[in-house]
């Protein structure tokens, strides 16, 4: 109790203190607190950072040249020498999977960034220019009615296989989603009283967009970008798997699986390892996205 408590006069009724009905909650601050409050973000981010490290540090992770052929050591099972075994050309699957992370992550991140930028530009125009809105949105609807994989396959058929072309094709297939989202957010933000107040305060159109609209679209856009990143990695793997994606000279999880496909029943490990890595990476990105959505969505955040 308080040391310097004033004496309570005899005729004053004091309420007895009531105990708490819940155990005290330790308020955690700093990194530990963040992990405690947002376990999905923490786990997703940790897994993604691990994958990124693999991609960056691939040459130093005990790998050999992923394209080096050694016909004498074909289709070896996983062992101390070949951790994930070797494929039908005797290439080290472990090295190929490690290097393959580079393609997946490059494609994932590039598409996420490019699709966000393109979607943001189109969405802003659509949300602000009334007459263009109808036309743009019908085009976007048309593009979204084609499954992204089919659209990407069709686009790849027009060019030659390269990572850049894969990124371009998937970006075109994915950005209408962002455009649609940004347009919706812009239309609702335009109705916000603070935007009206800014108009009354003499702020010009471009500044309204830059200062009041754009910063408030970033949160939902970031969440959408993570989902697009995950989707792009899967589409890239599929394209490579059916031979319409990354050229065979560059190892990617998709084309490693494609090459192991013929031997799936006898040497399942060739397909198994890249598949596991792809799944883990997509899981990481999706967890991150879910976590961010919960953190940035005020309705979810208000949840007790």
């Amino acid at each position: 109790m308080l040391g310097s408590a004033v004496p309570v006069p005899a005729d004053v009724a004091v309420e007895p203190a009531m105990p708490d009905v819940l155990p005290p909650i330790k308020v955690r601050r700093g990194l530990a607190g963040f992990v405690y409050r947002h376990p999905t973000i923490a786990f997703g981010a940790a897994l993604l950072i691990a994958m990124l490290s693999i991609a960056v540090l691939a040459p130093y992770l005990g790998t050999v040249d992923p394209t080096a052929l050694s016909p004498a050591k074909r289709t070896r099972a996983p062992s101390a020498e070949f951790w994930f075994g070797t494929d039908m050309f005797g290439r080290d699957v472990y090295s190929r999977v490690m290097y393959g992370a580079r393609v997946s992550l490059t494609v994932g991140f590039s598409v996420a960034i490019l699709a966000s930028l393109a979607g943001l530009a189109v969405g802003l125009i659509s949300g602000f220019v009334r007459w263009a809105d109808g036309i743009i949105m019908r085009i976007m609807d048309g593009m979204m009615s084609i499954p992204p994989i089919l659209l990407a396959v069709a686009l790849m058929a027009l060019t030659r296989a390269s990572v850049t072309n894969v990124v371009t094709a998937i970006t075109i297939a994915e950005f209408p989603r962002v455009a649609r989202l940004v347009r919706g957010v812009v239309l609702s933000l335009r109705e916000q009283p603070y935007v009206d107040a800014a108009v009354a305060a003499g702020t010009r159109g471009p500044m309204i967009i830059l200062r009041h609209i754009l910063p408030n679209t970033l949160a939902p856009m970031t969440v959408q970008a993570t989902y697009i990143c995950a989707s792009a990695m899967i589409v890239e793997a599929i394209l490579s798997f059916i031979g319409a994606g990354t050229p065979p000279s560059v190892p990617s999880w998709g084309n490693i699986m494609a090459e192991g496909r013929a031997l799936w029943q006898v040497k399942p490990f060739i397909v198994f390892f890249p598949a596991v890595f792809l799944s883990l990476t997509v899981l990481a990105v999706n967890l991150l996205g879910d976590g961010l959505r919960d953190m940035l969505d005020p309705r979810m955040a208000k949840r007790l």
Partner: protein
Amino acid sequence: MKSPLLEVTDLKKHFFVHSGALGTGGATVYAVDGVSFTIDRAETLALVGESGCGKSTVGRCILRLFDITSGQVMLDGKRIDELSAGALRPFRRRVQVVFQDPFSSLNPRMRVRDILAEPIRNFRLATSRAELAARVDRLLEVVRLPRDAAKRWPHEFSGGQRQRIGIARALAAEPDLIVCDEAVSALDVSVKAQIVNLLYDLQQELGLAMLFISHDLAIVEHMTHRVAVMYLGKIVELAPKRALFAAPKHPYTQALLSAVPVPEPGAARQRIILKGDVPSPINPPKGCRFHTRCPYAFERCRAEEPALRATAGGHLSACHLHDLPAAQNPLAAAA
């Protein structure tokens, strides 16, 4: 003769709402349908009415947040409803706004300092960084917020404090007229009193004119000089405050005043309970718009729309009953 600060003449704002699967169908919402009033310098005019009567739309028309359908809005003798966005800018400074919702009226991603600096920069009211900072400090002082509020974010403040920030932003442009759109309606009782007092003091000290849009008659009585009562897009009665609260002339005003619960247990009062609901502004009743709910409606009310005109006691009122001789007039009998 000096012109009033704001003169609104026969203001109309109709919205077109699309409907149907292809957006082919549609209907016109007669949100504001011929509203006229003036506001003098340093005067507060209250616009009262129930939801959907068009009072907020009037405020937005004056702020030129959208174009009006017809009519005139004159600021200081100059028509501003026809000005282009560029030509309007000098006039924008002179009319500012405080909104109802203290949460959505501040950009969550701007610090208080930047929120207050925005109008100062836009209208070039400060010549240097130091002067800008000094002005922001002064504004915070005027609305009785601590100086360190400048570097904080809106979400760190309570509803009442946010409303103070909103008021400071309106004052930053050094306006002549402030439109208060339900500025205290969303606040708790004790905080509401703080903000009402603040607005009242500011008006006295700075000689501001105010358009005080509200549905709360008790607050309106506290805040204003004159009161305009709106019903379905029209002003039905306009009178100096005391005249209106002492002897309302229009049957709607009478019902509205009698419907407000008074914090006095056992107070003996004649309450006029109106039948039914407010009709839709998409298809307003012909004749007097109030006739569907008016306890005194007679034949003429259903056919002919009454004009707003002077009646006894400095009132403007739009009701056919005023034409009836006193002996037949239920209003006179009730009074």
